[in-house]
């Protein structure tokens, strides 16, 4: 995947860190100190649709070839997460119990065109 930087307009991963102290949540979230709420942004022109190695199942790849072949059906593909990981949280619940949980697919590690 590509990280956004400078004036890149193509599909890339935009880093965005949420500091729990900045939003006043550091009293009930024990660990970690923040959340990498990265997201995908940028253009996915036709020629990038389904390029090998991106998020494409066989079905998507065939569909993209058909799109690329028939300009009339030319539609952009989307810039989506291609790799994600869980967010591990240790926090106090409403009864001050200590709860540890891993929320799946909360952190985007890479983006790509469908």
């Amino acid at each position, binding site marked *: 995947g590509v990280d956004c930087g400078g004036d890149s307009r193509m599909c890339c991963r935009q880093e965005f860190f*949420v500091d729990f102290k900045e939003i006043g949540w550091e*009293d*009930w979230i024990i660990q970690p100190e923040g959340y990498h709420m990265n*997201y995908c942004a940028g253009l996915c022109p036709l020629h990038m649709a389904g390029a090998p190695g991106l998020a494409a199942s066989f079905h998507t790849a065939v569909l993209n070839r058909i799109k690329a072949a028939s300009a009339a059906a030319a539609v952009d593909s989307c810039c989506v997460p291609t790799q994600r990981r869980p967010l591990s949280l240790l*926090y106090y*619940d*409403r009864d*001050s119990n200590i709860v540890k*949980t891993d929320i799946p697919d*909360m952190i985007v590690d890479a983006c790509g065109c469908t």
Partner: protein
Amino acid sequence: AAKGGGCPACGVASLAPGAQRDALLALAKQSILAKLRLPARPSAPRPPARGALLTALRRMRAQRSDAAASPGMMLRDGTGLQEYEILSFAEAGSSTPHSVRLHFRFSQEVAGSTEILQATLYLFWAAPSPGAQPVTVRLLQPDPEGPNMTVASEIRLEVQRSGWTTLDIGAAVRSLFGQDIPRFTVELEVPEDWGSPLPSERSDSHWPFVVAQARARTPHRVHRR
């Protein structure tokens, strides 16, 4: 805000940088609370005493390494479902010279959306006199029909000396998680000459606690033919 229910972050790119940051922070809060099934952030918590917390974490680690060593260790099948580990410290309830009640409470959000895999009660005995002493541990649950409590289970122990005891209370907590108010009470009854079975202060590092492992319930899959 995204028009027509599009992806939540779609409309953010067109905002001014300051507003964009605020929108993303709001989105992060909303996303975390939604995944924790919390309607809002919990109010200011009452953290446990440091000594009690450190002791509990040490006991949990010891228990986990014992479990890892035992051949019959329950291997968690990789279901990919979200799992929770909950550490709940007792709240002291009513007491008499030789019995005491301890209250444990679980949050609605976790109890309502998970199934209990395992639950262990940790009790510390400061046995004053040598020799085996009979102790009764009762698990009481609120009676759905009225203000009383029903005995969910009763265990008799022979306490030989001071130290920690662990009791598997998985079945009782499992039945409890299906109820509206996920809380239960532990009643400890000790011989007359023992005095209170509890440490004097909640800040004492021998305060009773429960450790529960839970897993998100599998979403009901409707099979259409």
